[in-house]
């Protein structure tokens, strides 16, 4: 398999990797130094093992459109990686070809709009299913295509599946040469195409998702919030908040007024003039050209735009969504946390009638704020874990921007419960936070059996008992379904 050129490349690559390792070590030296300092303080062997595992992980925080090779290296699971890669592969299932598309260029699509029209009915049905003892069929959290920018195109469409006994098509038949067909020139062994699995910046979306036009996450998330509240009886958050809608006034020139004002609205005025003159009989409306000298302008015809006072409602609530994006969060844990946070955000939007400002914070051994949900959702995991940094960041921001005075503040944290620290700093930061928040919710994705480090120290701190109305914590296992995610949210936000 390895030709001469490949061998040369291999050597070059190995050298590159070595240098990269050094570089990694240099930029990661902060993390490395942290590790060394923690080691001096004393680490249990299992703690040390977990820390070293995260340090070894070579990935970098990026946003890619496809699962990078580092996923394979991190997990060592070829089957899982192939499954992840499948939607991005260049293959054509022959069943995709059909007469309508090929001959007539007609690609019938189900529009999200049409599907959502029947959503209420379908959700009723799903509720009934639960009562009848069957698992629900409508799945909500299917994010079709996270887009870029502030108004991210995250579209939530209700989907369902029809379960049957079918072959798992990962596994093919035929001895050798399961692969795809192809046509063209070339020798056996010749490479005819390449897809990048490693690279900077944005990758391409291989998946042929449904295009739905410019729907911002705002509108669709709002819908989702309504659905969640109705379907799952999420409690309507009482106005426990100390702050009501702050009324701010702006002045602008949108109102129209006859008679007087700042600026003459020429078009509207002209329309009035024509109408008057039609009434008077000066023009019939059928002429080719209107002789404007014959028109009479009555004083009531003039229409002005007038400066008026408009109420502008300010956002009432800020929700901080915090997530752990360290190496240990690879795969399912990140999916679960992001789905749950999407649901929470959507629900809060509904509660506060869109007057919610979300802020997103990710942390590994350091915390940083990211500008939008798309980035928050898509950043690749890497690095170590210091949970307290996330809460510290929130405290910093709130203090710096003086947010506690004017806003209701909610904080939701999602992670896998691993922490390089022993929890004293985290608990301190949370104590500070409890003085100004309406609610803190923590969700830990654990392995289903043992308590994780974070859960242990949070329980030991006693904060959960003494402040039951202010802070909640629960856990989810890695194979949690949508229902469980929602139940966990109910737990976090209930009275």
């Amino acid at each position: 398999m390895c030709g001469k050129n490949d061998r040369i490349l291999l050597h070059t690559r190995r050298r590159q990797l070595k240098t990269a390792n050094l570089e990694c070590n240099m930029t990661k030296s902060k993390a490395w130094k942290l590790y060394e300092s923690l080691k001096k303080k004393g680490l249990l062997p299992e703690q040390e093992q977990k820390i070293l595992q995260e340090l070894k992980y070579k990935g970098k925080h990026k946003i890619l459109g496809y699962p990078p090779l580092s996923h394979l290296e991190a997990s060592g699971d070829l089957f899982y990686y192939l499954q992840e890669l499948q939607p991005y592969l260049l293959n054509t299932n022959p069943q995709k070809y059909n007469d309508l598309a090929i001959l007539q260029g007609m690609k019938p699509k189900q529009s999200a709009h049409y599907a959502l029209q029947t959503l209420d009915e379908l959700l009723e049905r799903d509720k009934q299913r639960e009562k009848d003892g069957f698992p629900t069929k409508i799945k909500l959290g299917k994010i079709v295509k996270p887009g870029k920018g502030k108004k991210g195109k995250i579209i939530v469409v209700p989907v369902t599946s029809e379960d049957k006994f079918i072959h798992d098509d990962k596994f093919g038949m035929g001895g050798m040469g399961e692969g795809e067909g192809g046509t063209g020139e070339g020798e056996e062994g010749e490479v005819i195409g390449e897809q990048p699995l490693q690279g900077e910046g944005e990758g391409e979306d291989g998946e042929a998702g449904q295009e739905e036009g410019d729907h911002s996450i705002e509108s669709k998330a709002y819908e989702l919030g309504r659905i969640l509240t109705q379907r799952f009886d999420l409690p309507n958050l009482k106005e426990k908040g100390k702050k009501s809608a702050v009324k701010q006034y702006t002045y602008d020139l949108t109102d129209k007024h006859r008679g007087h004002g700042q600026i003459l609205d020429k078009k509207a005025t002209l329309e009035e003039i024509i109408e008057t003159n039609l009434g008077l009989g000066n023009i019939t409306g059928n002429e080719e050209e209107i002789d404007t000298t014959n028109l009479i302008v009555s004083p009531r015809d003039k229409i002005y735009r007038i400066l008026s006072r408009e109420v502008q409602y300010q956002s009432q609530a800020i929700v901080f969504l915090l997530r752990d994006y360290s190496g240990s969060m690879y795969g399912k844990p990140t999916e679960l946390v992001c789905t749950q946070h999407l649901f929470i955000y959507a629900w809060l939007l509904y509660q506060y009638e869109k007057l919610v400002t979300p802020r997103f914070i990710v942390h590994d051994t350091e915390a940083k704020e990211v500008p939008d949900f798309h980035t928050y959702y898509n950043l690749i995991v890497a690095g170590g874990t210091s949970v307290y940094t996330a809460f510290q960041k929130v405290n910093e921001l709130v203090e710096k921007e003086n947010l506690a005075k004017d806003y209701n503040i909610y904080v939701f944290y999602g992670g896998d419960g691993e922490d390089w620290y022993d929890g004293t700093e985290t608990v301190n930061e949370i104590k500070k936070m409890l003085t100004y928040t309406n609610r803190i919710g923590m969700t830990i994705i654990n392995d289903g059996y043992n308590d994780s480090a974070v859960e242990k120290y949070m329980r030991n701190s006693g904060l959960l008992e003494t402040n039951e109305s202010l802070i909640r914590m629960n856990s989810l296992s890695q194979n949690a379904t949508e229902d469980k995610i929602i139940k966990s949210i109910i737990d976090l936000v209930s009275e």
Partner: protein
Amino acid sequence: MKLIDQHTKKLMEDCKVKAREAGLSFDKETLEYIVTNRDLIELSPKIMIPTLYDYWVHDVQLLQGKGKYEVYPHNPYETVINTRPGISFYNDNNPDWLNVMIFYHVLGHIDFFQNNSFYKKTWNDDFAGKALADKRLISKLRVEHGRWLDYAIEFTRGIDNLVGFFNELSDTNKPQETTMSKKVNFYFDVFLQQVKKVGMTQYLKEIDRYNNTLKEFPDAGETLFFSSVIKEHPEFDSLFEKHVKEAKKTKQDLVEYVNEHSEFLNKEKNKWIKLVMGVVRDTSVYFQPQIRDHIMNEGWASYWHEKLFLKDEMMKSHEIDFAVVNSKVMLMPMIGLNPYGLGWRLWMHIEELADKGKLSYEFQKITDSKERKKYDKKLGKGMEFILQVRENFNDAMFVNTFIDQDFMDKHNLFVVGKRINAIKGVLEYYIRSRSAEEYKKMLNDHLYHPPHISVDESKAKEGELYINHHFEGKPLYAKFIPMTMMGLEYLWGNTIKLETSEIDPHDAQRINAEAMEILYSTGILDIDEFLSKQKVKYQRVLYTMQDKYLSKEILDEEPKQHDLLLRW
């Protein structure tokens, strides 16, 4: 949706005349509708047949990815449907020449539907009419039983891909002469030989006696014969009935079996569910042939639309337009499989083979490639032959019989392999093989094949339903197992047990470790190459669904090895 206008209809009637002259044969009546994009949104989930029964899932988008093509392998967006009369759909924006071209394509399909013997079961039914009647039945039941009707539909659809399509076909194919009375068959084949174990002389005596009785009394001979049999062997009748019951059971597919033998369904208040199951099953059987001949059917229609349109007058002013559209249809992508292109080329290939006499043994003996190219007996039997092929073949037969190395070479076909190149950080697609054998293997993998699942009464405990997935190299898709079994439990009214094969997780780990080793040490992992050489252990497992709770146990002491046949 409205019918096409008179002008276009006239054009299409002319097309029919020309198609018949060229050799196609199909019913006189056809129906054509104009359809807009809006119509499509409402129609398409119901497989383009407006009268198909209403089921709420049609309103919700099917999950992308998994299940999209396996659950509905027959693409719902066809332009023509197999009804009597044949119904086809046209975009309201099409120019005349395009409608003509499409209509030729449609005629190709209709001819295929009406002549290919795999469609035998659909020839006498008015499916649109039946679907309408079924739809009305379903609506009526929905009024009476509400959501329980939709549950019945859902759970039956969970197993409707396992219908006994081939069983039904084989029944229609038996030549008359071989159907002797079942009783006679049973008496001579089973009763005398296995049950009574009579000696040779005795056996022959009985045969003689039977023949003589029939000669003497041609009308009542059989009855007379058996009345004497019963005098000697009084247990014969009951044994025979038992045998008939057994035979019937082995011929029943899962849906039929549950329908007939479920205690829950046999209760008076639940009998309406049987009607529902019948409707869902019939619909599924109806569409089975279409799933299994995508390449052949599309190739056939493409062949004819090209052949006929090139001769049509419309062609004269629209050469370029036609060329643009047709090239897109016939395009063979560098990586991938276009059934239209492949089918069309294969039909042309077969016609040429038959014309030149290359289907003979004499030709196959020739090994010199130049001679093979030159060989041309000018038999002119091409058209005759392809008309026969269209009658008797389906995709699996079509592809495996006629793709040969000459075809591969002529059209530059190859099998694409993939490998991870960690040195360059890319996934490489490369030409893996140009061999016809390999190509056919790859194609076979793409063809539709539902799992082979049958009822095993011997392993079922009291009241249970025990079903056996006969392992053919691919395990079942695990995520769908729970809900399907829950539905089955509801219909059966009792515990369900499913025996199937799954990869031994330890072996899977071993394979992963080996793969990573190769990747780290060489930087390149040829995935197809690597996996095809693996022998993987599969273990037999038993899923039990009881009271809506699913459990699993491993049956094998020792997992058995199979070839790992992984496609990704």
